[in-house]
């Protein structure tokens, strides 16, 4: 497998997905869930930190899944329908290499999305730890949650403004520059939060891993479905797979125990692998084999 050709495909695919308005919309929706869900509650029952974490992980999970399925399917179908696939395959690369590299590119764009949401989640958790319960006790919600929400809203608004500015004056792509800025801001803010309270926040990192693993599963399956079926049929297949795998994945329970420093039970790993088998089979049978043998 040629490293340079694979890198080119990975980069172009990630650029493609991160340039799409759909990606920005999903990212903004996830950020809104992440920032506002833990803030505006009448009662928090002294669990503001947990609410902030759950809201963030839910946003990372649902938004990541939407992006993994629709971003990947759109990227593959456009490649096949526009004819760029033929153009690419006339170069010295194998079909299998092209398929795998494009799948990795789609996964990379999902990782950028996860970085944005997870970085913001860390900020919100830190904000909740500092002032959430205090806000509930004193009732001075605006003053205590205010800086936290302001930081979260900045992660949403600053990229949009900077993206618009760069697009207007330097012709840089709006969506791409907005998402790159959001990723940079979220990572910086998340890193700052971790330096302030590493004991609380470092155990949260393993909690995002099941979501990332689940996303890799759906990117691979969606790529395979998109190669073989129409976009609607591919999305339906991904939906069926989602319904079949969700009970086994146990994402929230796993995240809960992982964020408290527990290790993953072997039975959970085995069940997750069993649940992933249809996606793995689809990836190799529909995706790799099909692109290897037929156009």
């Amino acid at each position, binding site marked *: 497998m040629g490293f340079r*050709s694979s890198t080119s495909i990975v980069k172009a695919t990630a650029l493609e997905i991160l340039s799409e308005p759909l990606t920005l919309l999903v990212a903004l929706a996830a950020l809104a869930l992440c920032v506002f869900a833990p803030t505006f509650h009448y009662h928090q029952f002294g669990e503001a930190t947990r609410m902030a974490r759950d809201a963030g992980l839910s946003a990372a999970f649902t938004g990541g899944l939407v992006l993994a399925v629709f971003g990947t399917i759109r990227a593959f179908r456009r490649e096949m329908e526009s*004819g760029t696939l033929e153009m690419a395959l006339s170069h010295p690369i194998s079909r299998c290499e092209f398929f795998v590299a494009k799948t990795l590119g789609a996964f990379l764009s999902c990782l950028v999305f996860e970085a944005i949401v997870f970085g913001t989640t860390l900020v919100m958790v830190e904000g909740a730890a500092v002032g959430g319960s205090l806000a509930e006790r004193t009732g001075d919600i605006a003053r205590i949650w205010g800086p936290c929400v302001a930081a979260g809203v900045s992660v949403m608004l600053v990229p949009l403004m900077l993206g618009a500015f760069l697009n207007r004056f330097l012709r840089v*792509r709006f969506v791409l520059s907005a998402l790159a800025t959001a990723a940079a801001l979220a990572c910086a803010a998340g890193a700052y939060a971790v330096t302030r309270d590493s004991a609380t926040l470092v155990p949260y990192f393993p909690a995002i891993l099941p979501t990332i693993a689940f996303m890799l599963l759906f990117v691979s399956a969606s790529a395979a479905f998109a190669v073989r079926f129409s976009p609607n049929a591919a999305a339906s297949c991904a939906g069926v797979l989602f319904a079949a795998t969700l009970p086994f994945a146990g994402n929230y329970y796993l995240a809960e125990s992982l964020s408290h420093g527990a290790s993953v039970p072997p039975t959970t790993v085995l069940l997750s692998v069993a649940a992933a088998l249809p996606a793995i089979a689809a990836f190799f049978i529909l995706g790799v084999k099909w692109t290897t043998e037929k156009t």
Partner: protein
Amino acid sequence: MDDGENVIELVDVRKTFRDFWLRPTVNAVDGLTLSVSRGEVFGLLGPNGSGKSTTIKMILGLLSPSAGKVSLFGLPPRSIEARRKLGYLPELSYLHPFLTARETLTYYAGLCGLRRSVAKERAEELLEMVGLSDVASRTVGGFSKGMSRRVALAASLIGRPELLVMDEPTSGLDPISTKEVKTLIKALSAGGMTILMTSHLLADAEDVCDRVTILNHGKAVAGGRVSELGTSLEEFFLAKVGDPGDFKLAGFLARGDAR
């Protein structure tokens, strides 16, 4: 490989497309045998549906022949070694609309396995050659058809191929750009590049091709050196293929049915 050795060789190649139940639907190519020598500009001509694009896709390794043998530089068309020496300009300019012209060329340079510095240098050189340096940072989705065609042409040349396959190279270009492309084909050929092209525009093919083969219903019905045809390529083509579509239209109009 010595001069005169075949760069492309097709021996009794057939391609039958099948439906979901594997029943044959179309015999797109039927027993085609042809060869293209090194340094030659070879024209594959024929009416719509004659099998030109299918033949090109088999040469590029995008389709497998149902029977017969296709070889590229003596190797199977899907061999990575053979593809290193190949450039392809499709009929429609297939480009990623979200990439800029510069990124498009760098992307295809990456697919050719070129190092980043070489890729950038060659991309700039080709952008200059096709006259798109000023708009290199704009996404190609906003380009006109002619500009997209120029980008696609530059992309097909970025790996410095020994064989260039051009599907309707002058399609969608204005007369000045068409003339530029024909001049470029002649220059590339003079530099030793082998070129296989298809065209509906027989005058264009006549201007640049050394040798042609005319396809009809998937079969080679005639061919030879353009300089030895003894008549214009258009007359030769019509004598071999005819133009039934126009005759039917003429009859339809003569009956006064067109309203």
